């Protein structure tokens, strides 16, 4: 990219998109040059995803103008966007499982010989595209047989097959290990050299500083600024994102830690985790740290009765948990906030009230009747305590921002007054404001004499909140660290198995 005359690949002029009740994107100007990586950052609900969906052709009713390579275009459908050279790589991969790598990559423009698919040409084309992203796989391999990291690169290869001039990547590193992130960055660097305009959405600021040339910050549906990354510090970006200075993030309150509440002995679920021992105490926040695939969520599912254990025992306050099924554990006061907010945690089509009460439905019984009014105070108190906006309990959940949805999810599990609350990535992908509120609520819960088990990939969160952290690797606890021993670096090294044993 030369300083005097960057080529503008994408120009969005005064674009806007309104949903019922919100203006998701409000008169935004956005420019991306050919041959640059342009980071797009902002808290959840800031409008990044909506802006990019607009570019992907998801809406036919956006306002404003979009110019690609200087030419005004209408992006009203995904195929129109593709035709104009917009390539999208989403967090969730869009590959079809049982089909081969080659067919996935070349889907949409299958080479033909007469009426038949030209298999040799298909394989050659797939190989060519894969080589751009540094993959050397057999194009006939089915997608389900490759790793998630490889699948992501296949996805990129697939998008490159449509000859995009603009490539949008939405949180591409969220499921990757450190090595894989490095490889991805090298590939992004290559694509930049080929003259692609790359829009890179991320919550992870260190990554943004590593890879981006420029950055655009959004807040509340508006653009705050677009700047060269070199002219900014991390603090300045955070300040623009939140519109206020982030003071000391974790002000830790003293908690008294008591007896063992939840004791797990020799617990195994074959193939996922083996011979796990764990003691979580009254008033304690016990962290569990590990890379994805270490068996953390699988362990949580057994701890709350969603899956049966293959061996081992679980005791609550010294009594063996003998029942099965989640309802039994829930009745004992053991609750589980799942990692996947949208498909496992919430019912987005229902109201906020229905969602918050969904974990305590059997309790809201008066004779034969189910009476929501019995939960009305609970809902009102939780909405207030967690500053959920909007405050109307009847609002449909889909209309809330991600951060507020996550607060509703926490409220749902707080509603039952859990004695043991297992949190699985409680703040993944939420804005800083919501994160602070969620952390405070978790500390308060522990402070009131309950037990919290915190599973997280967010290292500052573990370092700041947990009294103790157990490091999980390949289905086993390999190490325990006290609050004093925990730093981001020490946790990361331990989780990756790089600490001196």
């Amino acid at each position: 990219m030369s300083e005097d005359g960057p080529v503008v690949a994408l120009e969005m002029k005064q674009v806007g998109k309104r949903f019922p009740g919100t203006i998701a994107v409000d008169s935004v100007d956005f420019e991306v040059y050919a041959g640059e990586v342009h980071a797009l950052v902002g808290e959840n609900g800031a409008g990044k995803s909506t802006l990019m969906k607009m570019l992907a052709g998801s809406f036919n009713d956006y306002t404003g103008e979009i110019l690609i390579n200087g030419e005004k275009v209408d992006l009203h459908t995904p195929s129109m966007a593709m035709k104009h050279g917009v390539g999208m790589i989403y967090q969730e991969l869009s590959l079809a499982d049982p089909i081969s790598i080659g067919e996935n990559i070349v889907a949409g423009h299958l080479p033909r010989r007469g009426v038949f698919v030209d298999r040799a040409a298909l394989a050659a084309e797939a190989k060519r595209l894969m080589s751009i992203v540094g993959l050397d796989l057999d194009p006939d391999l089915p997608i389900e047989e490759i790793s998630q990291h490889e699948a992501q690169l296949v996805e990129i290869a697939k998008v490159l097959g449509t000859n995009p001039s603009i490539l949008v990547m939405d949180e591409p590193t969220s499921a990757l290990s450190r090595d894989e992130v490095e490889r991805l960055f090298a590939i992004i660097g290559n694509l930049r050299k080929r003259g692609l305009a790359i829009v890179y959405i991320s919550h992870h600021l260190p990554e943004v500083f590593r890879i981006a040339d420029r950055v655009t910050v959004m807040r509340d549906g508006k653009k705050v600024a677009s700047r060269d990354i070199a002219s900014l510090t991390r603090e300045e970006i955070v300040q623009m994102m939140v519109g206020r200075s982030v003071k000391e993030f974790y002000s830790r309150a003293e908690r008294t830690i008591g007896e063992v509440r939840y004791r797990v002995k020799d617990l195994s679920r074959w193939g996922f985790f083996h011979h796990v021992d764990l003691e979580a105490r009254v008033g304690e926040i016990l962290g569990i740290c590990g890379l994805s695939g270490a068996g953390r969520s699988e362990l949580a599912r057994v701890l709350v009765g969603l899956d049966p254990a293959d061996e081992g025992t679980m005791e609550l306050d010294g009594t063996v948990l003998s029942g099965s099924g989640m309802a039994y554990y829930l009745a004992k006061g053991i609750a589980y906030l799942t990692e996947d907010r949208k498909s496992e945690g919430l019912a987005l089509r229902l109201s906020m009230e229905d969602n918050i009460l969904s974990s305590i439905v059997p309790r809201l019984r008066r004779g034969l009747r189910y009476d929501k009014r019995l939960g009305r105070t609970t809902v009102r108190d939780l909405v207030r305590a967690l500053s959920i906006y909007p405050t109307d309990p009847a609002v449909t959940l889909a209309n809330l921002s991600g951060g507020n949805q996550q607060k509703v999810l926490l409220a749902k599990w707080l509603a039952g007054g859990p004695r043991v609350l297992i949190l699985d990535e409680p703040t993944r992908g939420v804005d800083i404001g919501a994160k602070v509120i969620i952390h405070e609520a978790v500390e308060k819960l522990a402070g009131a004499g309950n037990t919290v088990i915190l599973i997280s990939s967010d290292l500052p969160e573990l370092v700041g909140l947990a009294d103790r952290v157990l490091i999980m690797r390949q289905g086993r606890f390999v190490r325990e660290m006290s609050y004093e021993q925990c730093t981001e670096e020490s946790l990361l090294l331990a989780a990756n198995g790089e600490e001196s044993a």
Partner: protein
Amino acid sequence: MATAEMKPIDVPDARYLRSSRFSRIVNVAGIYGIAVLFIIAGAVLQGLGVINNFMTTRNFLNIIDAVALLGIVAAGMAFVTYSGHYADLSVPTTMALTGIVTVELLHYGFVPAVLAGLAVGLLIGAVNAVVVGRFRANPIIWTLAMSYVTMGVIRLVWVNRQIYPDVQTDNLRTIALFDGIFRLRLFNVVSLPVLLMILIMLAGHFLMTRTVYGAQLKLTGSARRTATFSGVNAERVVGIAFLLAAFTAAVGGLIITSLSRVGAWYNGTGYEFRAVTAVVIGGVTLAGGRGTIIGVIGGAFVIGLMNNIMTLIGIGTFSQDMIRGAIFILVVGINAKSLRSLGRDDA
């Protein structure tokens, strides 16, 4: 933590965020409003001389009796749709088999025969409940298969025979009771099927909106995985929905068999589609978790009136099927579009 609060964006529109009690009433009232429009249309057509005998007591009694039968079947079907499982296509054969078994066993007496008929209907429902609820078979494919199996059983055991109450038993009182019971009219107006429909509607409405089961069904229908992760036994919840559909189909089978005075394989033909149409135009969306039983009964009224007027005009059966099909497609299309235009529906 006032600083951390999400900034409200564009507050004036906030009222669109909630589905208010008022809008819910309008939605339910809407379908009855359409029913009233049909009555007005019928009256106008009669005034213009296009049809005769629409505005007569006799015709209205006919309409309401037909609505009762459809409304009963649709009320159970609504639970399946509400649970997010679209429809129970085994309803017609459940109706037929219930009727046939009841007539076949009439020589054991009225009550045992009716109970046996209902039990057979519930048995079909129980199989659906286990296979769709527990093993998560595709509801459409499975209940379609179930209806073929049931039809096969009927054809195998009874061949093409139609069986008549007066052939199955010599007890004249039992015959009279079976043939006459659903023709009874309270105050010479309200027939037993209408009474049953009202009872089933009220009980169904209570079950869906005012019980723990109803709350769990709503959650399951809206987001099944989330329901499971909230401690709801979704298998059981869905299973009960299929049992309810089978129960109302069985009751419908008794009525249709009694009114036609014959147990036959063709009793109930077409009721799966008519019931789903009533369910969907009554406001229960195919996406699950939305709508009310009272709306569904309104849907049955609209269909009953429409059928009546079309018949009086002299529109043939096939054309009527076509029109009903077109209306179904229209309503489902409008629903899908309005959900999608919200932009955030996970349906």
